[in-house]
């Protein structure tokens, strides 16, 4: 079962790799991802993720993400520009969508 997460982060050095590392380490595969940098050092990340192997609780992962200092907000769901298939340049799709 895959989930879509919307995460608003402070767009500073290391923030993205810290976020991706946490998601992977906590047992999820990132199937698709999009980053759009906004104003004032803030970026919005959308990730479609799926648990690797056994089932994991997505609410626990969301709280683990939320406690990162670079993370301002997290919610589940897909923003409009991704749902419409018009992801901005800079996003990538991995080869194993779930």
């Amino acid at each position: 079962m895959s989930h879509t997460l919307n995460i608003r982060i402070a767009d500073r050095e290391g923030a993205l790799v810290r976020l991706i590392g946490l998601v992977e380490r906590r047992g999820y595969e990132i199937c698709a991802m999009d980053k759009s940098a906004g104003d004032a050092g803030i970026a919005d990340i959308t990730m479609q993720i799926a648990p690797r192997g056994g089932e994991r609780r997505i609410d626990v992962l969301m709280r683990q993400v939320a406690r990162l200092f670079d993370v301002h907000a997290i919610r589940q769901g897909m923003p409009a520009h991704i749902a419409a298939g018009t992801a901005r340049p800079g996003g990538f799709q991995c080869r194993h969508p779930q």
Partner: protein
Amino acid sequence: MTALPITLPEAETQQRTTGAHWVVRTLEELGVHRIFGYPGGAIMPVYDALVGSKLEHILVRHEQAASFAADAQARLSGKAGVCLATSGPGATNLLTGIANAYMDSVPMVVLTGQVPTGLMGTDAFQEVDVFGMSLPVVKHSIIVREPEEIPARIREAFAIAESGRPGPVLVDLPKDTLQAEVGQPYPPQSLPAAKPSPASSSEIDAATALLACAKRPVFYMGGGIGLGGAVEAARDFMARTGIPAVSTLKAMGCAHPDAKNYLGMLGMHGTRAANMAVQDSDLLICCGARFDDRATGKPDSFAPDARIIHMDLDAAEIGKLRNVDAGIAGDLADALARLDPGYLDIDPWRQVCSQRKTEFAFRYDDAPGSGIFAPALLKQLSEAAGDDFIAACDVGQHQMWVAQHCRFSRPEHHLTSAGLGAMGYGLPAGIGAAMERPDAQVITVTGDGSIMMNIQELATARRYSVPVKILLLDNSSLGLVRQWQEYFFDQNFSEIDLYDNPDFAEVARSFGVEAFTIHSRAEVPAAIDRLLSATGPILAHCLIDPRENVWPLVPPGKSNADMMED
């Protein structure tokens, strides 16, 4: 730090203010009085600025020891410990200590030198991406690229390390940032960190309702109680409700050792009374613990009939490994004070628990032969040292014996590498602890395997005349591994024999540390006396029976109900 008495040619007096000066100034401003470190190329500007500063710098002999000593100081003081190392190998040597602090939620600020920003990413001499390497084991990390930002970033590092659930924060300092002249006045101090927020009333109400109808509740105490300043609240909760209580390895000392209804440690080497109570419980009130597998045994057979109340300052812990019936996220002292179920009709349950406590209490009178029986020695030592003594343990059988047989009046007095289980912790942690609490009895309890992981720190103990007492329980083997091979690997003993250990007393003496060796039970009382009355540092080398094991034991992958006994 005072300069060593080396005569140098008249140096030009330093008038420039550099990033490195601001590193030192910010540490001073934040009230740091002692840092542990080891110099090298990229961090040299900071060492330059240290001369003449108010900071006491402790020169260890391996960076790992700097991180462990800073960790121990932090556990005792509740304030972030600080360690310092150069880039590359200095930084990688710190990683075990960073991971240790992360696993045990210890506030720590780690300062590493880095190659100049222009060389970062080019495989420069002594360049490693310590920011990247440490990502999974830090609470946060920062690379400071502008010298003017140094005060703000270091203050931020302390605030993050010490606030909420504590943890290590790494600050990577490229050499050019440290050497650059700062072109601004030193910025004013920022505001103090916010207090942890209280749990919501609805969460407390839900938990109270569960408590009110429980027949066999157990209070499961974890390290978060000590970290969150909730020891008094936990003791009050125990006294008020009379709920039987157990503790994790990290929570030893949260309950007074003689407290009524306190059953001791749960888990792999826990007491029978504690594990049986948890297994039989119908409600587990987990407070600042995280259902670690060493505590729970096989997770799906852990407390199978229990509903769960899980209280933690860190909301991300709630429900991580066990679904909860009521979650309470917030300040633990506050939550415990508000959790008041009134009269609980659980007398029969209290009786069952206390009967088991008496029935299965540890015995010390049945050890055969005349050799040193380590559990009895530790019990005697702890009683002689008094409940306020501080133990710094290494990892192995001796560590478990300390948890089983010593008495602690406060959780921070039991310094142990619980989450990471890092051999080598004991001696540097003992040094850090004895420096922080020079008037306390600080005893490092170590094994012949573990002490060799940081034995070089005898030099540090000697250099600063640290009053640390070292009890070395020498079984000529990697005892805990041997025990597992004996029971779970068909006695196929593999690479655990340390028959050719050096003469440890001789080694200690060659470092200038007082030392002696004992072999028999009859020598124990005098040895304890000598250890406790020494001004330290001192090492007592005790030869014990290599076949001695830690009991009881829950076999790996088994339920806590399946405890093995000798």
